[in-house]
């Protein structure tokens, strides 16, 4: 290749430059619009920005205001409750559904579609539908009353202490089918010979699942948890459609906190600080995952 360029054919040169040419626009765009704006947001979080960006350095003022904010405390508490329950319930239910569906039953394709379908709905639709369903004046409670069960009561949606759990219900309803599909794919990938051997040895089915199959699903668990964790942290639209962050601030989460401070409270600095914090949390989750995923083929 050290010969003069003139000796190389035009095709060679094209082969050399074409991939770079094709990739460079998207590379520049990603660099600017993703990483550039991350830097910009970080800078804003250390500035005096209010209604409009203001680039004067303010040190950690916005960060200390964020951490002394009472609503931020509620938001963090809620994301813990919501995230933990959402991830655990979705994973357990998804796995259970996948195991049940893995029993070589009839009409499996149809059932799988039915379970998976909620994922096709947007969070806004899910949130609105569940809001109607759980609203005591419209949905479940009223239906039960009109059917004659007068003492029935389910008013979590309007109870400040319980409202966050109604969000968990709706979110679990939506994502479980998807997690089930992931586990089902994982189950189908397990070597059947091993299971047959265990069956011949006379191991009961639950033991086969507990000792052989589920331990082999470790990568699926990891993927499921990472997918669910970032869905949980991004859960903005579901909350907005279902409770509007209410009653009061009872279902505020970091995402709604960020939106409210940036756009209705004219406190861009605090909003930027909360956004950077959310990014840091997601990075703490995703980076080890990517690291392990990218390393695996080599080992």
């Amino acid at each position, binding site marked *: 290749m050290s010969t003069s360029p003139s000796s190389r054919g035009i095709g060679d040169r094209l082969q050399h430059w074409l991939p770079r040419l094709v990739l460079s626009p998207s590379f520049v765009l990603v660099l600017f619009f993703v990483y550039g704006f991350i830097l910009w947001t970080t800078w804003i979080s250390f500035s005096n920005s209010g209604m409009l960006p203001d680039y004067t350095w303010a040190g950690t003022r916005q960060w200390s*205001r964020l951490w002394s904010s009472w*609503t931020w405390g509620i938001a963090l508490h809620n994301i813990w409750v919501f995230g933990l329950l959402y991830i655990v319930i979705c994973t357990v239910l998804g796995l259970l559904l996948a195991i049940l569906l893995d029993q070589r039953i009839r009409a499996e394709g149809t059932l799988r579609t039915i379970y998976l379908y909620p994922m096709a709905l947007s969070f806004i639709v899910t949130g609105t539908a569940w809001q109607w369903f759980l609203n005591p004046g419209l949905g479940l409670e009223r239906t039960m009353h009109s059917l004659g069960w007068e003492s029935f009561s389910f008013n979590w949606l309007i109870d400040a202490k319980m409202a966050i759990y109604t969000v968990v219900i709706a979110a679990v309803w939506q994502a479980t089918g998807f997690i089930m599909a992931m586990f089902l794919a994982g189950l189908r990938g397990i070597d059947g010979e091993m299971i047959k051997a265990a069956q011949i040895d006379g191991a009961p089915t639950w033991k086969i699942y507990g000792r052989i199959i589920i331990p082999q699903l470790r990568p699926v668990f990891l993927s499921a948890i990472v997918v669910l964790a970032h869905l949980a942290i991004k859960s903005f639209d579901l909350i907005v459609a279902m*409770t509007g962050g*209410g009653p009061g601030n009872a279902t505020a989460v970091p995402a709604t906190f960020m939106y409210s401070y940036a756009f*209705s*409270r*004219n*406190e861009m600095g605090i909003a930027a600080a909360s956004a950077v914090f959310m990014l840091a949390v997601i990075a703490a989750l995703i980076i080890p995952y990517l690291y392990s995923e990218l390393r695996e083929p080599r080992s």
Partner: protein
Amino acid sequence: MTTMFNKCLMAGVIPLAIALSSTAFAQESTDKGEVEVLNWWTSGGEARALGALKDKLSDDGIGWKNMPVAGGAGTNAMAVLRSRITSNNPPTAAQVLGYDAQDWADRDALSSLDDVAKAGNWDEVFPQPIQRFAKSDGHWIAAPFEIHSTNWVWANKSMMDELGIQQPSSWEEFIASMKKAQDAGHTGLAYGGQPWQDATVFENVVLATGGADFYRQALIDLDPEALDSDTMTQSFDRFRELLQYKDDNSPGRDWNLATAMVIKGDALYQIMGDWAKGEFLNAGLKPEQDFMCFRTPGTQDAVTFNSDLMIMFKTDDKQQQAMQRTMAEIIGSPEFQITFSQLKGSVPARTDLSSDELDACAKRGYEQAKAAAKSNTLMGSMAHGYAAPASVKNAVFDIISSFVNSDMPSDVAAEQLAMAVQGARS
């Protein structure tokens, strides 16, 4: 290649151009150019009121390019406005509320309306509390459209008659009448449980409990001692008392659904700004005959207001400047102030007009607003951003809403309120 391209262009663009031209011609059939106005007046009465401005402008040969951004309270509209200004492409004018006009003025983004104001004698005809928002450093930077006021009770007349309820004149009578309605199986207070509605009711209670001076001291001057005082604790006590008469299903309810409860006869009262009147009128009801309007008991002598303002953005274009002046002149003119308020359900912002053409509620509201302006009890509404900047306002919302949705004791709420306000100001 070029012919191919042209053909595609023709095929695609011409039908589109024809489709657009009908509206485009309607807008641009003038030689004086057109104004682009950002607003969030998209509902029936609001759009009609805005139409009045558009018609006046077209009488002067000025075209209209509407730039509506849907979404209540203008949060979305303000986000759009911010992006337009930061990209150096401001609209001709924008509808804003309260502190927003001041913020833009501080950034030197607004045209001065001083010459229009001088010609129209605005310094005399608009009340001081509104000038506080429409002026910056002594210069007029916004044209006020109207006065909306938030200390109104809207009542179902037939339910009042049926239960023998007289219009309450004191807080005790007010509570007693709601108890009567509740005992008869109705809801006493139609209540929408969104933070700004919680705050609207709360500011009424504060005004009724502490009076105008206390309201000003606590919610406008944000005096920490007033915020965490016995009077504030007592206000929270009364607020709690009031909350007993709402139904359980109120969290998250929109204000117009609460108004519908009064219209349908499910509830006796609603405490809400005068835009609620529009819902009654749209339902074909007549003020003083089918529904009643009165000031929240205990607040008869005061008026808490919010007022829409039109701000004009700085431009070097002489034609645009002329159009901005014309628009400001129209908005400040007596005829327009009356017409606009008739359509929007408010009262005129000018205090020198006759109320003959207004309906019964607005007539009373206008006389009260004028009297309040004279006696210095015309005060900005906290819930609608005319008492404190957005950051403080929302911090207050946080406390009030959590008080409504929990069993927080009143003295704790007062203490938290003072702390939250201080936190937002730091």
